[in-house]
């Protein structure tokens, strides 16, 4: 293992993390809800689910956040340049999306619900989920990047 010092941005990463923690704290202490994004979004896909109002509001906030950043930091690109011209890239993103949608419903949580909120409340169930999805994601990237014939 080598450290990629060129791309290492600890302070920005920490500041972003603090904001994520604040957002989760606000939702918990004010609304009494867990900021689990896969669960919130899945709720929206069941249009007749009760108490979806706060979910729509949270979703709207997420959607607007890149526009707020564009106002705060004009001229700075908010997202990296994305070159997904190859049809294989589209297919890869679609398949990845299906796996993430199906997997997070099956496990009842993702990086936010299990990763941030679950670990913050010291839930053993969430710790298992985090160790498993981190492990499987790391293995996937290792195979994708370092297998002979792998991409990038």
């Amino acid at each position, binding site marked *: 293992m080598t450290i990629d010092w060129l791309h290492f941005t600890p302070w920005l990463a920490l500041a972003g993390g603090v904001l994520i923690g604040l957002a989760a704290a606000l939702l918990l202490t004010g609304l009494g809800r867990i900021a689990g994004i896969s669960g919130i979004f899945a709720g929206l896909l069941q249009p007749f689910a009760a108490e979806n109002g706060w979910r729509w509001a949270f*979703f709207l906030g997420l959607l607007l956040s890149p526009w707020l950043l564009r106002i705060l930091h004009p001229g700075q690109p908010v997202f990296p340049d994305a070159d997904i011209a190859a049809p294989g890239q589209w297919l890869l993103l679609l398949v990845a999306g299906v796996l993430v949608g199906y997997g997070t419903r099956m*496990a009842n949580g993702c990086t936010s619900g299990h990763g941030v909120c679950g670990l913050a409340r010291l839930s053993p169930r969430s710790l298992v989920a985090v160790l498993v999805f981190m492990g499987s994601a790391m293995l996937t990237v290792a195979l994708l990047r370092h297998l002979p014939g792998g991409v990038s």
Partner: protein
Amino acid sequence: MSLLLACLSGLIFGLGLLLSGMSNPAKVQGFLDITGAWDPSLAFTMAGAIGVAMPCFFWARQRSRTWLGLPLVLPVNSRVDRRLVLGSVLFGVGWGLSGICPGPALVGLGGGFLPAMVFVVGFCGGILAFNRRSRPAEDA
């Protein structure tokens, strides 16, 4: 009031994802790439988020209502079962393949980031496919 608060929380959450680099798939894959040139930045994101949220969960555990007077809905499911593990394996594979997890996917959808928009189509499909197969249980 509670809707405004939920919207503000989503806004701050999204800003955090953008600022930290979680919404940059290449950065996420660099963090997951421990066998290559590893970029540990996002470990600081997790530490910062958990560090801020943890005292609030301790506060919440000792109460039954929020400062808005709403009931505190905390998860009660503590079972570690096959479903949790298998679901997390699938999620990890998808996350590794794309460098995108649900939060950044929705932030990217809002901001017009094309890879995230394609991802969300599959994401919806995966959720609906799971719901068809079994009833959703309680969340993390």
